[in-house]
């Protein structure tokens, strides 16, 4: 996946930058990219995209007139696909934004264009205490048959959703709910765009889950957080409205063992992803 998009000007000045996965050493990366762009002035890439490896990343670069374009992607990515995306980005920038950049004007609309081209993966984390139905929700979303025996998740289970959103894959991270695994939660939700907090809709569980909302807001403040009031078929269930009030997040009803909820839930996730993007942009 493309983890970062950078456009530099003639003096090595950063015209545009966006990181989809926040790393630990952004300053080092930017310094490296500026040096690389400086070095690229001395060679002719003949409008081609080239790349170099850096640990697990691969840095793709291309030059057009006075601009240098860079993607930080994964080494495991299909290079030809990334090169194609680079071609799209360069073309779009040179056609609609190059003159604005030269005149030091703001690049209105470029951010959306970059998202359209570069976002290939959206991470959705499913969090909640043990036995609330997280894995059942995952099976429901993937349209899979539910297992007859409850098999607690160990650590994390990562699966793709068959559906895509704006040509991007949706990857679901189903986090183990047993309390011993709570030490992993903060690490596992890193860079999630959406976090779904699943509750079994009992008062006790919903009250406990407030802690999860705080954790998510601390660790991934930019993520869109939604609540799921699962097990609505049980007599002890609080209403989704009540669950939402307690958690202070938008909350939706669910009976994860009922396949008829699938489409509705997928729509909720899609909406959350799009709303999350819009909020991030507004921020």
């Amino acid at each position, binding site marked *: 996946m493309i983890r970062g998009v950078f456009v530099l000007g003639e003096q090595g000045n950063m015209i545009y930058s966006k990181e989809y*996965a926040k790393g630990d050493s952004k300053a080092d990366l930017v310094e490296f990219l500026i040096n690389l762009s400086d070095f690229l002035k001395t060679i002719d890439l003949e409008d081609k995209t080239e790349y170099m490896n850096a640990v*697990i990343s691969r840095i793709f670069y291309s030059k057009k007139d006075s601009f240098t374009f860079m993607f930080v992607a994964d080494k495991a990515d299909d290079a030809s696909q990334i090169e194609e995306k680079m071609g799209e980005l360069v073309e779009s920038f040179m056609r609609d934004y190059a003159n604005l950049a030269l005149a030091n004007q703001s690049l209105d609309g470029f951010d959306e264009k970059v998202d359209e081209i570069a976002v290939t*993966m959206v991470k959705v984390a499913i969090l909640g205490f043990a036995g609330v139905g997280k894995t059942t929700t995952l099976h429901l979303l993937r349209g899979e048959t539910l297992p007859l025996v409850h098999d607690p998740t160990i*650590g994390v289970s*990562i699966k793709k959703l068959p559906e895509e959103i704006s040509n991007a894959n949706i990857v679901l991270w189903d986090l*183990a709910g047993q309390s011993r695994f709570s030490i*992993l939660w903060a690490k596992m939700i890193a860079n999630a765009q959406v976090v779904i907090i699943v509750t079994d809709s009992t008062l006790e569980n919903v009250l406990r889950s407030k802690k999860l909302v705080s954790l998510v807001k601390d660790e991934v403040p930019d993520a869109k957080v939604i609540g799921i009031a699962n097990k609505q078929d049980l007599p002890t269930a609080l209403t989704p409205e009540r669950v939402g009030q307690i958690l202070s997040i938008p909350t939706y009803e669910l009976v994860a063992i009922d396949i008829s909820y699938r489409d509705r839930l997928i729509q909720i996730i899609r909406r959350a992803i799009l709303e999350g993007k819009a909020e991030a942009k507004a921020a």
Partner: protein
Amino acid sequence: MPKATFIVHLDDFHGFLVRDRYPSSLTLNEKILNLIFYEQQKDKKEELSYSNVEGMKIAAYSSSLYPRWMVCSILSAEEDFDLLRVELAGSGRLILAILAVDPDSFSLEEILKTGSVLKELSEEQRLADVFLTPSSALLLERMQKEGIEKAAKLSIWLREQIQNNDVDLREAMAPLMDSGVVKVELLSKTSEMVFLVKDVFGYREPPVDSILRTKEAIPSITEKYREFVTDFFSPPPPNKGYNPTVPVDDANSPIFEDREKISRIIAERIQYRVLTSLRDQPLSIVDISQKTSLPESIVKKVLFALEAEKIAVRFDEGDLWGLLTNPRIESFLPEYVLEIIAKKLKEKEISPEAARRHLELLIQTWGVAK
């Protein structure tokens, strides 16, 4: 040698990725990787953790330098984790360090077969950490003025300096404590005191020993070597050579900046290994590779990086590499604290007990004068 070794990276999007494995026939599943990661996180205070996962004896090495990476070894039934501890940590350290320097020519098999390890940090490397942690460097400067100070007072001072109330003094002081620059002790049950027992100096030393050895072992390059070193340290006027003893008050002076550069190189394990191999005399890449047990491709990359930092220099003759400058981080007895202790005691800023303890600590650290 363990039955199998593999390197795992936890990627924020893709989850657990096995970066490399040896033997290549080794199979792993998500559950095993999850359990190893969990066990390692549970014991995260240690670099090396041991767990029994699905009937396998597994040692996992991780380091705060490379977050979310683990080097895991599956031990055979006869192997004893405690006996292998140093070796496993050393090889894990080396594998992650090499992977960071040269991922393309990295070969897990080659490293495992040579049995090469990276030892724990040397004293010099621990001292380098002081200059790489901004709050530690700041605290060192403060302690050079104060000599002895109450921890509570130091904590308030640090908070004011960095305008952050959440700063943890112990954490900020960790590099100073780990390297033995300061000692922290509880005196009279209530007052925690910080004592400065060592001072630190980071500089580039002319590679005198190396030049002398070169004169004996490779006389044909001695003249050229002297010329390189003289050009750096005392070039003909109007150029100024490198002189770290010139007093500077400006925090942005090139000497301060250079000290940070030196510290970074000394703290970086692979660069340090190559650098120390050259302290005796100039060597060829093959010799350095043999001496350091690092692949030649890595040695070459590191040498180019050291050359760019004016630490290594290449001789055309015999394709040899030598030290142009020898970066050193050294500790010394801060004699000036004696005056500070006397003054503070006279002005009743510190108790006689604190003054006595400070002197004891200085004697313990530096030995009794004969």
